[in-house]
């Protein structure tokens, strides 16, 4: 099956454009597998501070959008309501960042995200 084209983003900057990258099909498969294993959550991701690391996400041309921030991950398939999951030990969030090709995310950003 052909994988839809998906791009990853870290929401962190104010002045510069946030880092973006194309998610490779193999990485996307890993993300999907990980997502399926996450337990449901009653609560959405908590509100991030105004300045600084605000989470990371993957957006696909198919309309799927994942977002992860500090222990909660969400999948939105518009127009449906987001599905929230508990991202135990922030593994899903870490996997999104791992899907970026080397050099895309500066080390300082990873450290600001505490990941």
């Amino acid at each position: 099956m052909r994988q839809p084209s998906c791009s990853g983003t870290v929401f962190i900057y104010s002045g510069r454009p946030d880092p973006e990258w194309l998610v490779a099909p193999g990485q996307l498969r890993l993300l999907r597998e990980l997502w399926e294993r996450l337990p449901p959550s009653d609560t959405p991701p908590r509100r991030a501070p105004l300045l600084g690391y605000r989470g990371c996400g993957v957006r696909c041309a198919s309309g799927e959008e994942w977002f992860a921030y500090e222990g909660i991950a969400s999948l939105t398939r518009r127009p449906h309501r987001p599905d929230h999951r508990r991202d135990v030990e922030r593994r899903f969030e870490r996997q999104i960042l791992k899907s970026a090709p080397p050099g895309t995310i500066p080390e300082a950003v990873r450290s600001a995200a505490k990941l």
Partner: protein
Amino acid sequence: MPSVRITIDIFSGRPNPVVELRGSQARAALAVLRSAGRERPRARPPVPTLGYRGLLIERPGSRSQPVRTMHPALEDLLTDTPSLLQRLALGRQFPQLLRREIERFRELCEGWPRHPHPWPLRERCRCAPLYEPAWWNDAGQKQYNNNCYNYACDYRTDTFAQPGLAAGAEYTQLTCASVRPAAVADDLIAAPAAHNRCPREGHLVALVIAPGIDFHWYRKGRNGYWSHKPGGTPVVNVDNSNHLIPDPRTANRGMYTQFCTFMVAMHGHIKIR
């Protein structure tokens, strides 16, 4: 046969649409309602807000008052059963609109309660731009393609403007020493001694740096308080601790730990890209 009447509280000018459930659908709705009655009520924005505001449930013939709820199972029952909404004759787009509205209201509730700060109206900086967040926060072109530098300069480019780019002198490092001269090349005026005082002409902006990571700008408003636009997110007048900003030097700036300088943006003089 049990029956339940659900009023979708969504319209402002028109009467709200009403859906009647009977039989198994009504029983399912009543079961949801009973379980919802045992839940601790969630904080929610005060009605009125414009758009979807929840569901009003009543049992025809019963003397009990209608119950207001925003239980997801009931909302799903409505949006996932096309025949129910089709009966309302509100157009083909209505189910989609309702789903979007439910989502919007849920997001609003998630951030509730909000404690708006009193926003002083006394004019302290005659030449400073108005604080008009709604103009920037359009959740579209203006909001996503203009950053802190655009907002601080009060200059919409829709390009996520970078200091120095318009003058061919873009910053090369994320340090004060590199970003400050880049902004000067865009014709902002360095004002290191401004000490948070309004200039006679133009308006005051402030540059801060997350060393090696990013830069950020604030602008001083007509009432003397500061506001900012973190990247593609909405314009706000509070800092990371949700406090008003009388002085960006003392605001909670998160990772933007380095306060670089005050500068003056003269309207019509600067050029940014």
